[in-house]
């Protein structure tokens, strides 16, 4: 799931836990747990620190790595138009084995990703699109990135989200319900292989402070080797406002 171009409120602190249950072709279930701490530094910058835990390795749950993510929002807002852009970057470490052609620095590959995202808000509909460059490095200490494979990729996403409830805002206590549909694609630069996924999701914002996302990700097509592209993603998030003076 892509981050939006807007930032979280400045001086606030957030905790998030992402859970992904992905189905391998042989029926095995891959469980990824990605706890995350988020910090809104000011109106321009926010940073995330994330850990990657999964049951993919022999011997059950293991912490495989972590990442640092930063986002810089650079577009000005107007009273009437709501268009914003942000640059973002992620650097990840991972020590797990490399088992697919897909490059994914969130929980699979050591490497980095850099890109930008633009969001346009039209009444209750938000349209977001992102483009990024992702590069895989060796999963140190034991797994070198195979020299026969493409170690870089272009990623692109397009999402449309709509605020379904409430119809009219009357208080911060109202539960907000958003529906979202996202397309996520990747093209490997070395061998031109690609995939495209679709991910419908529903989002609940409770008391304007907690957020639950439930999504299903389904591969539409792929010409590359992927271990477990399809699955259910459940994300919990909680924001502490004005946590920093």
């Amino acid at each position: 799931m892509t981050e939006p171009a807007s930032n979280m409120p400045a001086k606030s602190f957030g905790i998030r836990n992402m859970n992904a249950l992905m189905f391998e072709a042989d029926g095995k279930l891959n469980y990824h747990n990605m706890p995350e701490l988020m910090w809104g530094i000011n109106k321009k910058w926010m940073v995330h620190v994330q850990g990657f835990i999964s049951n993919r390795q022999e011997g059950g749950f293991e912490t495989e790595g972590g990442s640092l993510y930063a986002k810089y929002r650079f577009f000005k807002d107007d009273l009437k138009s709501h268009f914003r852009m942000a640059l973002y970057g992620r650097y990840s470490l991972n020590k797990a084995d490399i088992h697919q052609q897909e490059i994914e620095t969130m929980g699979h590959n050591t490497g980095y990703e850099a890109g930008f995202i633009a969001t346009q808000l039209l009444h209750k509909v938000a349209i977001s699109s992102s483009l990024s460059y992702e590069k895989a490095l060796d999963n140190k200490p034991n797994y070198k990135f195979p020299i026969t494979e493409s170690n870089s990729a272009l990623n692109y996403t397009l999402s449309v989200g709509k605020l379904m409830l409430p119809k009219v805002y009357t208080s911060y206590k109202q539960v907000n319900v958003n529906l979202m549909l996202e397309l996520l694609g990747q093209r490997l630069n070395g061998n031109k292989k690609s995939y495209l996924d679709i991910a419908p999701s529903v989002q609940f914002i409770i008391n304007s402070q907690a957020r639950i996302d439930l999504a299903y990700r389904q591969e539409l097509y792929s010409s590359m080797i992927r271990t477990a592209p399809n699955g259910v993603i459940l994300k919990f998030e909680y924001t502490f406002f004005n946590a920093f003076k």
Partner: protein
Amino acid sequence: MKKLLTIALLLCITTIANSQIIRAELTATGLTCSMCSKATYNQLISIPEVEKVEPDLNNTTFIIHFKSNTPVTISNLKKKVEDAGFAVGELIVLFKLDNQFAENNTSFVLDNITYKFMDTKSNTLNGEVKLKILDKGYIVDKEYKKLANMSNQYPSYGGNNNNIYHIKAL
């Protein structure tokens, strides 16, 4: 001659004892979710002279009620919105005025802050009057740039001074 000028200038600047700021309507930019709005609300309610904040979530506007007989520091409103990570797009302040003559470049003083009229038709303001703050950071950038180009008409405009605000009668 100089003395006369000084007196004439002083006459333009009137201090009215029974005028006061009653409330403010602040529209923030960049608020697109209820979380962002709540962060801004929490910042605004933390200002000591603020009695109550009514958020209008549909229009990202906050109606800010001030405690009576307490001086209001306008710059605090801007600072708190920016602390939440957003910006002020429009700030309209409801003043209670007592037969205040309003004309471009005339001003009045309230709690040691000078309020100078700009872009306003000459008239006399009495009772509860809505005045829009026109200084940088209180309006959107586009509007500020337009006004800054009129500096020959409004010599004091464009500075970043928390002791003087430029206001337009609505």
